């Protein structure tokens, strides 16, 4: 394998059989290329889904009021269920579990905000301080709404990065005032959110302020919580379900909702969706690996075929070599060495080509479902190694057959 003589012999053979070598190389390179691109897209889809999913804390549970679909306790269907702030406090006080983060939410779907001549329409959300963590928002500049803001009902707002870009361009917005629906607010912070543009086109303010200016008494839209993380998934799922169940029971009894009415309260449990998403992700990964392995297999068959043709084509040459003193193992070594060298070289070529494509085109792919397609380098290298080993195995049998050729038969072969 490391003999310089053998290498010289290989290079000589390859340079004299350029077309044959090229064709073998193309089949291997395209196999690896397809595999790499496929795995890249798979990775991109996974990234996309994960980002979609990471918009909020992964252990967040929340309850939102809806509209009843069934009559119950003498009340008509079609009744709006309007949660109030008390529902939030009741849920906190009666909880059987420690609560990590907690916040009610009051939402105005669209509010016109302006700073001088710049203006835009954004979602307005009145929240408590913990909401930052429920939303996984991170502060770029300034601070989030704090408990003091809530207690005093200050007119302080935290704006999303999108809002900051629209209204302030490159200027520092901290301490500046914006007008929202005719009322002046002071910007105290700018946040970014992994949910992307849409999640960053929001303006947060203290719940009390939102209720006072835009709301109706103690009305709120949603109550959200997280329980402290536990490493055991099943335990986390159990806790979150029990916690949510209790809130649901209380609300159903308070608002006279039928126990089988599914549209009166929207319950969301991210831990449950985590499981679904991870199932989808792992299925998807499995699928891409399946397709990748099938491609690889096709590549191996191709290599094996070509090696068989090579040996067949070189039958006479092998006979001559044997008559001149080549031992069987040197024939095996010669064919294998050449095939492994060609496979490795073209495999690397296909790999680099695939990575280059992902690198150059990847950043321009603009969909929510494929984000930053890339291939884990270890995965790519191990596929090349697998291909080389498989190519060697595929090449071994033709090579062995070549070595078994009796020189007397080979020399007769015209």
């Amino acid at each position: 394998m490391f003999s310089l003589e053998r290498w010289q012999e290989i290079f000589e053979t390859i340079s004299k059989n350029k077309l044959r070598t090229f064709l073998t190389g193309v089949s291997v390179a395209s196999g690896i290329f397809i595999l790499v691109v496929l795995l890249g897209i798979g990775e991109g889809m996974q990234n996309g889904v994960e980002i979609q999913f990471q918009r909020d804390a992964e252990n967040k549970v929340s309850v939102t009021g809806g509209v009843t679909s069934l009559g119950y306790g003498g009340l008509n269907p079609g009744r709006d269920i309007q949660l109030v702030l008390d529902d939030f406090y009741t849920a906190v006080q009666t909880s059987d579990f420690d609560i990590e983060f907690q916040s009610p939410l009051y939402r105005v779907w669209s509010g016109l905000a302006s700073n001088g001549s710049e203006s835009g329409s954004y979602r307005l959300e009145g929240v408590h301080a913990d909401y930052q963590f429920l939303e996984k928002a991170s502060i770029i500049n300034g601070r989030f709404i704090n408990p003091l803001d809530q207690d005093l009902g200050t007119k302080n707002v935290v704006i999303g990065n999108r809002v900051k870009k629209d209204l302030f361009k490159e200027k520092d917005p901290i301490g500046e005032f914006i007008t929202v629906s005719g009322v002046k607010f002071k910007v105290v912070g700018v946040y970014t959110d992994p949910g992307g543009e849409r999640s960053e086109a929001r303006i947060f303010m203290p719940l009390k302020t939102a209720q006072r200016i835009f709301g109706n008494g103690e009305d709120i839209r949603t109550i959200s919580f997280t329980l402290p993380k536990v490493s055991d998934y099943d335990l986390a799922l159990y806790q979150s379900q029990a916690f949510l169940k209790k809130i649901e029971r209380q609300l159903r009894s308070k608002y006279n909702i039928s126990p089988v009415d599914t549209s009166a309260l929207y319950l969301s449990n991210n831990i449950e969706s985590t499981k679904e998403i991870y199932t989808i992700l792992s299925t998807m990964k499995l699928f891409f690996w399946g397709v990748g392995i099938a491609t690889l297999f096709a590549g191996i068959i191709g290599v094996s075929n070509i090696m068989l043709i090579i040996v067949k084509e070189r039958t006479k040459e092998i006979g001559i070599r044997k008559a001149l003193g080549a031992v069987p193992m040197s024939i095996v070594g010669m064919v294998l060495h050449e095939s492994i060298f060609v496979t490795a070289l073209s495999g690397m070529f296909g790999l680099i080509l695939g990575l280059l494509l992902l690198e150059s085109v990847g950043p321009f792919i603009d969909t929510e479902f494929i984000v930053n397609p890339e291939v884990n380098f270890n995965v790519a290298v191990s596929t090349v190694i697998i291909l080389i080993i498989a190519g060697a195995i595929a090449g071994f049998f033709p090579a062995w057959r070549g070595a078994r050729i009796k020189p007397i038969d080979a020399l007769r072969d015209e």
Partner: protein
Amino acid sequence: MIEIKDLHKSYKVGKNSLHVLKGINFSVKEGELVSIMGSSGSGKSTLLNILGMLDEADQGSYNLDGVPIKNLNEKLAAQYRNKFLGFIFQSFNLINYKTALDNVALPLYYQGLPRGERMDRAMSYLEKVGLADWATHLPNELSGGQKQRVAIARALASHPKVLLADELTGALDTKTSYEIMDLVQQINDEGKTILVVTHEEDIAQMTKRIVNLKDGVIIDDKKVEPIRASAHV
């Protein structure tokens, strides 16, 4: 140099067994130039294949330079071929993507010689057969006579004990045939033992001894005064 006793060989052809060699007794001393003659089917090629260790006898003994050639595995056969024998074929059997020089150097590669030494020695044998200027040419750029000269250089390069030539002039015209035989006689004059299988009478007359084979047995084995090929060129 070569000692053969009671050599038998048969081939299976379908259900029948074809007895090709029926007890050959034959010996060749160092420096001899022997031709083995016979019509097709006489068993001369089979005998040469056994002598060349490309085929194995069913029965009988074969000694080459004092080494018994028996029950060889493929590896040992290959090593013995490389060490003891030089082959010259009717169809030249040059490797067509290698230059004349590389073809001549090939048996030396299997002897494990370093590249520089291989090339020097191959070049000296190409000079010997008069093709030094053609060293970098591929076989398909050479004439039939030139190809056979390259093949002879290749057979000589590994310093074999015996040269085995199978119808070495079969693919050549008369004039070229005599030129090649002239070269063979020169090599023999230097002391090399050479066996030539042929069915051409004029070629056989240029060797020192003619062995006639018919239906698997030697019917005639006589020394002759060789006709010098150079007289006809």
